[in-house]
């Protein structure tokens, strides 16, 4: 296996005029190419912070992140799916998906073909010309997944992308995410505080605990896919992770 991302002794301290937050301390993690990694932990234990450092949105206080053996620069291609609806309201679903391709100066015809391919992948091709505000929350997040994948990024970063959706829509999108991941073989880092979701999606689950945010344990998930969330092994694993995030 090839190591895609290597995180060593990562620390993050937020210094604001009011207070000083020790968000992450001593984070070490190696992520293999094509892996599906879930980050779980209680609210405030630094999951978003780690993802934002990987995305280049916030600065690293100390430690290193390397990708393919080189120090991480800001301008590598990453697809990001946010918890908030982050589609551009002034672009149709297809134009949203095309955005990253436009930045890369992909010719129009090809842009159109690729964006429709990805909309098909998230089963929304018939909504290609809809503006986001005419789509339901679940559909918007599917477009967001298509947009994050269409320009062929090196990794996909997802921060509680389906957290605002109802349980049923959420389950559908989890299955869809696994499907997309299997088809595209992208490395995915996926933040959630929903443990069932983490066990359903991840190859490995990185368990964080707070104050300061740090990794408690990395749990390997060897269940065959598609996973049955009512199977005894599934529930046993979920209970194990649940114990890890709470008692420390």
């Amino acid at each position, binding site marked *: 296996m090839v190591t895609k991302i290597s995180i060593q002794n990562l620390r993050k301290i937020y210094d604001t005029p009011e207070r000083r937050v020790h968000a992450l301390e001593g984070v070490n993690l190696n992520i293999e190419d094509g892996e599906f990694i879930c980050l779980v932990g209680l609210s405030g234990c630094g999951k978003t912070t780690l993802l934002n450092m990987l995305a280049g*949105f916030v600065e690293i206080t100390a430690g290193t992140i390397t990708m393919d053996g080189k120090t991480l620069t800001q301008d590598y291609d990453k697809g990001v799916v946010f918890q908030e609806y982050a589609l551009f309201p*002034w672009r149709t679903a297809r134009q949203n998906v095309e955005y*990253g391709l436009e*930045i890369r100066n992909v010719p129009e015809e090809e842009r159109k073909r690729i964006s429709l391919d990805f909309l098909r992948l998230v089963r929304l091709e018939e909504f290609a010309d809809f503006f986001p*505000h005419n*789509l*339901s929350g679940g559909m918007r997040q599917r477009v967001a997944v298509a947009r994050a994948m269409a320009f062929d990024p090196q990794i996909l970063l997802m921060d509680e992308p389906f957290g605002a959706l109802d349980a049923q829509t959420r389950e559908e999108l989890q299955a869809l995410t696994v499907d997309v991941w299997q088809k595209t073989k992208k490395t995915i880092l996926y933040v959630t505080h929903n443990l069932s979701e983490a066990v359903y999606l991840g190859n490995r689950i990185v368990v964080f605990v707070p104050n300061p945010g740090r990794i408690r344990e990395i749990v390997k998930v060897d269940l065959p896919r598609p996973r049955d969330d009512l199977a005894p092994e599934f529930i046993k694993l979920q209970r194990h992770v649940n114990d890890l995030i709470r008692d420390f």
Partner: protein
Amino acid sequence: MQTSEAPPVPQSMDEKKKEVRSPIWVKLRPIYPFIVILAIWQVAAMQAQGNQGRLFPTVDAIVYRAWELVTGPLFRALAENPNLGLFDQIWKLGESPILLHTLNTAWRLPFSFFIAAIVGTVVGILMGRFAFWESFFVPLLSVLLPIPAIAWTPIVVIWSGIGDQTVIVITAFASFLPIAMAVWTGVKTVNPVWIRAAQSMNADKMTIFRTVVLPGSLPMILSGMRIGLARAWRAGVGAEAFAGIRWGLSAGIFDAQEYLDIAFMMVALGILGLFGFVLEKVLFQPIESRTVIRWGMMEAMGAQDKKV
């Protein structure tokens, strides 16, 4: 996979259906209050005829006066020379005072507004993008904004004399201020998650500005333009009167005061009102319904905008 979510009907379709179905009387409903007021006016004016005839003209007298104001020079010329050519006829029509007043206001106001819109947008963008210009302009604009622009008229008259230029300067200045403020606010308050999304796809700063910040701040910019136009309208009409120029609807109104020509004033006021209405209908509504309303961006700032 089966989607449990019902595909939502786009709102625009809904609206179209309603439009098709609405009968003519529904569309004409906004006109009826005017008819009521005109009827009351007419009755009151007829009661007052005995002693105040000219000072409180009836509706039909006002309508007749309007007709006379528009066609007076043409008919007088035709009386002198019945074989007047078509071009001369049009020329004579253009000599009617109310048309001259209207045309003068009609070019000066939009012209001043467009200057203000361009300068205001540029300044607003500079303020939104560069801390230097922000710290330079914000204190200035905050002090200038509460001063009614019309109060500058005497100074501008002394500096630039009596004439179009004075009215244009005051009108443009009045509408520049709120436009610059709105563009600045709009650029500053664009949803940061849109910018992060664009950054994650490695868009450079210029591209982000063009493809995210500008469309993202369009609701604020348009609402600033609206306020700007309303301000331009008020200041421009005031400046016309106080700058002592000859042609312009409100200049005409103040002239008419000396002859106690109430009918003329009423006609000119009617045209002024119509102007604002037409600008709203032909300028703002089409732009908005094609952009921010179509994109569903007005809900986010709707309440705020409606108050203005």
